[in-house]
């Protein structure tokens, strides 16, 4: 089948199999930031924006994206750069494999709630698994970013 959608701001058209997942579609289109960690919607690594809502691309058909805007971390580099240095300062990037999904969902959090509490951060990101960092460093990084922004 043929679909048209906007991927990272660019309108694209493609012939796809009806059972193709959005995840496979995105990697086929060189969006390598999108990672698969579990195939069962438990890990959050494949988080992308469907219009402006974070979704798990491993469990969505590419066909559903027809006529919509899909955004991956490739399309949000500048918005990510605003805060990821603070995560890096904590060393909380670690192996990095969960980072794109975590960064995407943090962008979603900060758009929705520009000044979240620690508990709101934990709650919002609870679907983003990380096996390396123990999460505290990610939290410290986000908090340091919020504090620096407040100080400006």
């Amino acid at each position, binding site marked *: 089948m043929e679909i048209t959608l906007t991927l990272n701001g660019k309108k694209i058209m493609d012939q796809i199999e009806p059972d193709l997942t959005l995840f496979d579609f995105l990697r086929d289109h060189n969006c*390598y*930031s*999108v*990672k698969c*960690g*579990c*195939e*069962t919607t*438990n*890990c959050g*690594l494949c988080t992308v924006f469907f219009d402006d809502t974070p979704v798990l691309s491993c469990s969505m058909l590419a066909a559903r994206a027809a006529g919509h805007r899909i955004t*991956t*971390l*490739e399309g949000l*580099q500048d918005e*990510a*750069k605003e805060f*990821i*240095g603070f*995560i*890096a*300062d*904590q*060393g*909380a*990037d*670690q*192996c*990095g*494999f*969960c*980072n*794109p999904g975590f*960064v995407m969902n943090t962008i979603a959090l900060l758009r929705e709630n520009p000044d979240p509490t620690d508990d709101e951060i*934990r*709650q919002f*990101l*609870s*679907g*983003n*698994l*990380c*096996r*390396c*960092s*123990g*999460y*505290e*460093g990610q*939290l410290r990084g986000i908090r340091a970013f919020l504090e620096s922004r407040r100080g400006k």
Partner: protein
Amino acid sequence: MEQKNYKAINKSVRKKDAMQLLLGKPVYTEDIAPKDALVVKLLRSSHANAIVNTIDTKVAKLVPGVVDVFTWEDVPNERYTTAGQTYPEASPYDRLIIDRHVRCVGDVVAIVAAESEKAANKALKTIKVNYEVLEPVLDFRTAKDNSILVHPEDNWVAPCEVGGTNKRNLVASENSEYGDVDKVLADCDIVLDRTYHTKAYNQAMMETFRTYTSYDRYGRLHVISSTQIVFHVRRILAHALGIPKNMIRVEKPRIGGGFGAKQTAVSEVYPAFVTMKTGRPAMLVFTREEAQIAGSPRHEMDVRVKLGANKDGKIRVLDLYTLSNSGAYGEHGPTTVGLSGHKSIPMYTGSLEAHRFNYDVVYTNTMAAGAYRGYGATQGIFALETTVNELAEMLNMDPTVIREKNMLKEGMLMPAYYNEIASACALDKCLAHCKEMFEWDKRYPVRDMGNGKVRAAGLGMAMQGSCISNLDVGSATVKLNDDGSYNLVIGAADMGTGCDTILAQMVAECMDCTVDDVTVFGADTDASPYDSGSYASSTTYITGKAVEKACEELKKKMSEVAAGLLDCSSDEIVFEGKTLRKINSGESVTVAEVGVKSQLNNDIITQASASHSSPVSPPPYMVGMVEIELDKMTGEVKVIDFMSVVDCGIPINPALARIQAEGGIVQGIGHTLFENITYNEMGRPVESSLMQYRIPTRLDMGNLKVEFEHSFEPTGPFGAKSIGEIVINTPAPAIAHAIYRATGVWHREIPITPEQIVMGKPDN
């Protein structure tokens, strides 16, 4: 403690790859493999013990897009091990690439190579296998001398004498004793005899096992793999495939976590075999289900502790027996078990008169175990620390006080630790520091919250090693460039831990430059100097020392070049970081000028390599304390605070050391409260996804607080020891202790689930 003013050491520098990783750049195996690689899929056994009578692949080969299908008839009949370890290989040669006799659910029965994943999956479904199903050995307590043999074959080989034989389902066994254990036990006021059971756990690194293979421009097998051990993988592949080592090149890109799982060549051999057979690039990516049921998890163990003590709390004798379940194959079986005794008993060196440590490691028809952060120490420490907590509670003694009476202190000779001397040990300071930070005296008494919930506290101590002494080899090459910057080339594998950065900090300290002046490359068997790889907590301690040595050597070479430029002898040259100066003169040349000279009419190479091994493995130490809130109605345990103090010597990068500790603690919390690998009655693993195998989320861990007590390890680079593994060892004993405090029941098996707590049933 020796405290120096360092420029680059003991600084929280950002990881060199941090921004690439956080921006989602394509740096992992699957991101860089060409898209036209053949997709490799594995047909796996659904039986725990069976012989393949017939296997029909005719239809599978006809599926459009399928390039070939391979079965046991196609592979070499030479047994090998996938364990990534230094010579002499301790693990038995007990695997074939595909074995007609499958020994666990998930064992490989056929390899499919296809143009697309869809075609490969379709082919898998059309392969017809007729099995002769045999009765499996599933309970590791009945495996030794069982009439059913997991490895009855005649070509089973033990390359090392480790006390194993396939004719008894025995991977390894050993007995050792110091002093007269029975005599001291008979003389003790109290003898506790307890058995603790720890389950297998999956590392559950976010990136599953994966490997890409192709032929390079010289017709050699080029392997790009998510591995901690490029050189061991080369050896393992050469052995398994029957080709010379110099026909194989192994490199690793960035790795999405390892925790020991990737210290075994779990995925490499299959695509390599496909490339050899078809001549085409091939790629294998394990699904999460495959990683869960056919990975390389922790060894399940029963640890029996006999502890003899006096009424005053003096621990006089320890007698440990460990039974370890290696599963269907012996990877890391002979070695992990040793740590259950060697890295628990020495913590009580202060008062011990005698100790004994015996073990058996057995085969069963379950998933083969491997290396997992902690590597046996985790299991032994849960057992011993819980026994000590049981003793304290029985004597009505504060468990911190009983430890103060018995613990290892700096300068002591450790008979239970290869007679090494505790040259740097701040364990006592860690305990005092943690006690104060946690407010132990206030939180230790159990508090009923009045709403059906109880708050209680518990603690555990831990140790680990910093390498495998007299075995591991770390190496580094440092070279000068013509702009005055340096390249550091290593064979150790940064799996997210940050060793690329930590080792660059050491170069910066030695060469008096910035960390940004140092570019790091690793790891590639063609380009890197030999390194055992990143495991056994060794990279900072072993490879770090090699970096230090290489830098010293490089300075000498640079001085020689500078001497030529300044017309003097090289011992008149003083290395001053940015410049090299002729002594007692103002004449100097810059490092960049030396670099330029090295590329112009020159016969002194401005590059140096060094290797390092250590005769000792200095233990890091740690104390962890937890406060939990336990719901008496539901049995739910919530971790409120987990506080710990670590002595890893001088931390090279305190931010990264802290993250190691936090990450390890959270894994340990998962193992203690909910992670589990169980099998149904047919031997099929139940937890085949992250939905069933639940790893901790941000909501499961409470508040973490990690602080450090510094000791200075004289044999380590800049006083450093290790931190990667020890950090997983304290949650289990601390949480089990707190649950006892809240409920009055000792749970001697982990995980301790709400069901077990509500039923109030101890496990032994």
